[in-house]
């Protein structure tokens, strides 16, 4: 097992970035790591850009924050946000990005440019060959609840970590209301398969 992991999660206020962070931190603790998690509240949550930092370390975590270039893994729920936080990823790190787009008011009312999927790939191509664009929100809509995309992406992330799916599912079960447990379980497992499918397609290509 790796000694330490730095995760950066990002999305738009209302996408469930904070809940996903709580789950990821809980999984680290359940798997025996020392864990710290840092997030923002208040003004930024009103439709603004939201990011959280999570660190797992087999011995001890000091700083709750990760610096630029220090994240091993990025988990991002929206394309423009994936570009905003790209510089946090260390070279060769892993980025999992929902193909979802949420166009900000600066584009609608201000005429700013919204990045294309090609631009996303080009930026990450300068850092790593481990960018995984996942249809998290599409899967969530298939499952009947658009707000579960965060757990689909956690499922995708879980395939890169040496923590058993059982621990993930236990933590999810403990943290979500009973009537949502089955939905969360399905979302998590679909997320795991989504990455596996993407990887085999890459190999085939």
């Amino acid at each position, binding site marked *: 097992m790796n000694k330490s992991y730095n995760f950066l999660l990002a999305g738009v206020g209302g996408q469930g970035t904070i809940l996903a962070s709580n789950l990821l931190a*809980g999984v680290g603790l359940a798997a025996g790591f020392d864990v710290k998690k840092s997030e923002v*509240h*208040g*003004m930024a949550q009103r*439709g603004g850009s939201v990011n959280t930092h999570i660190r797992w370390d087999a011995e001890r975590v000091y700083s*709750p*924050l990760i610096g630029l270039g220090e994240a091993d893994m990025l988990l991002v729920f929206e394309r423009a946000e994936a570009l905003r936080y790209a510089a946090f990823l260390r*070279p060769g790190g892993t980025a999992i990005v929902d193909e979802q787009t949420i166009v900000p008011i600066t584009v609608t009312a201000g005429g700013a440019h919204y990045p294309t999927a090609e631009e996303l790939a080009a930026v990450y191509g300068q850092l790593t060959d481990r960018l995984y664009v996942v249809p998290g929100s599409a899967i969530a809509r298939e499952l009947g609840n658009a707000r579960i995309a965060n757990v689909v992406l956690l499922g995708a992330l879980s395939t890169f970590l040496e923590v058993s799916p059982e621990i993930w599912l236990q933590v999810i079960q403990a943290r979500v209301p009973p009537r949502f447990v089955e939905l969360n379980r399905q979302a998590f497992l679909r997320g795991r398969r989504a990455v596996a499918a993407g990887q085999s397609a890459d190999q085939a290509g």
Partner: protein
Amino acid sequence: MKRLLSGNEAVARGAWEAGVKVASAYPGTPSTEIVEEFARFPNVYAEWAPNEKVAVDVAVGAAYAGRRALAAMKHVGVNVAADAVFYASMTGIEAGLVIVTADDPEMHSSQNEQDNRRYARFARIPCLEPSDSQEAKDLVGVALDLSEQFDTPVFLRLTTRLCHSSSAVELTDGGESSAPRQPFPDKFPRNPAKYVMVPGNARKKHPVIEERVRQLARFAETFPFNRVEWRDRSLGIVTCGISYQYAREVFPQASILRLGMTYPVPAGLIGDFAAGVERLIVLEELDPFLEEEIRLLGIPCEGKSIFPLCGEFDPRVVRDSAIRAGLLPESARVPVAELEKPEIPARPPVLCPGCPHRALFHVLNKRKVPVAGDIGCYTLGLLPPLSAIHTCGCMGAGIGQAHGAAQAGLAERMVAVIGDSTFFHTGMPALLNVAYNRSNVITVILDNRTTGMTGHQHNPGTGYTLQLRETPPIELEPLVRALGIERVRTVPAFHVKALDETMKEFLQADGPSVLIARGECALLPEARKRWLPLEVMADRCNGCTMCFRIGCPAILKSDELDEKTQRPKARIDRLLCTGCEVCAQVCPRGAILFRDQVQGVQA
């Protein structure tokens, strides 16, 4: 048992375990969750006070009455509460009193980044600073013990990063500590020499609190949360709070003196540490507070000549500063990839879809009036395309500013906007002044039936207390009339035409007016039940952009262009739209269906 707790949750837990019985607060990021969490524990009283000054008075009263008490607030809340903090320092208490100040380096959610350790020195009260959630929990009990031992209120200073970071905390099973404390009598103390601060008593008290500081400084020499970690002696770092974590992260080999009490400082401990290292630096966010204290001891040190005065630290800030100062070799630098990136659209916080403030700001923008703003979600009315807020200083400032500008004899009519909770906080005396001194200010109270920005806390207008007891909701209209305003009108917040006509009438009227724009925050559970996404009839839309100009995140540009104008038509994001109908009211072509039309189409 270990659990991940945020700093705020840990303070709440610590307060409960240490037997705090009364807690009072006004919501403010990053402190809000402290009393919110505390309120859930059994056998405690917790409340939202209308403002921080009242919160501290309440906690003082409980501590006079012999019950351990806590008041919590964001850093600027201490400005509001300062009068109370200073007299409480003079009188002391019967049972422990802890005042939590949550400072906001980087101004994540604030108008300034003042360093409230200055208040501890100013008011002659001790200041404790935890470095993680475990210490946040433990230091609450320590602070209460100190409070009783030294007969003083105690500051517990947190910062945003500590409040909103989570780390593992060891919980005492069974919770509430049964540690024996001195029994407190069940009668309110009759002790005027101690509790009545008339000049005669106060003059006797001043030397007492100066002596208290000297005693606390001696106590600090052996205080277990002031701790030396000896390692390599070529570099010694004095640090506190969250900065300790960055110091350990970036300088794993350095010797560190971590101060858990940052006022008063232990002269002997610092002197010994300084003598034991070759180079002494101070790592602290914001002001050079410890640096100045150490210099006053006659000990040379470096601090703000190396590390930034403004903003929040992180490992990179600390590392890069250290490399620049020659404390670390160039090889310690973590490279940052120079990425070729397209323009990334800014995503500022915005008024939510369905926000009851949007229609008013649309009207104010259209009427081009100068608007004195205040603190709350509605401050976001400053952003384009609404661009209708022209000042924002502190809680309750807007009405007074508008009155001052009006009395200065401007030709323009001044408008002040203020939320319901902010009006209860400090808006009321300012409106009383408008009525008393008769200016023709138009005050708009944005009554969204909650405290929005901090996450839906109850306030005197909602009909519930923090601990969810029912209470008579304070009605704004009679309150405003009682303050002396005769022209008062309540208008539905989503009704564009009614708001505009009322504003037009008030702009022509003489003397003060109050417009209460009433509409529930769209995120309240009851409001959510009424969400109904509207629809654009694409054949009627010609891309005129009127609906884009209300700044609603649910209205997007469609890929479809109007044939004549070649401008993108509007479309509505069904997942975001709540059906508030403000866009439908501003559409000149009836292209956006109203709720009953949408329901008609669906039926």
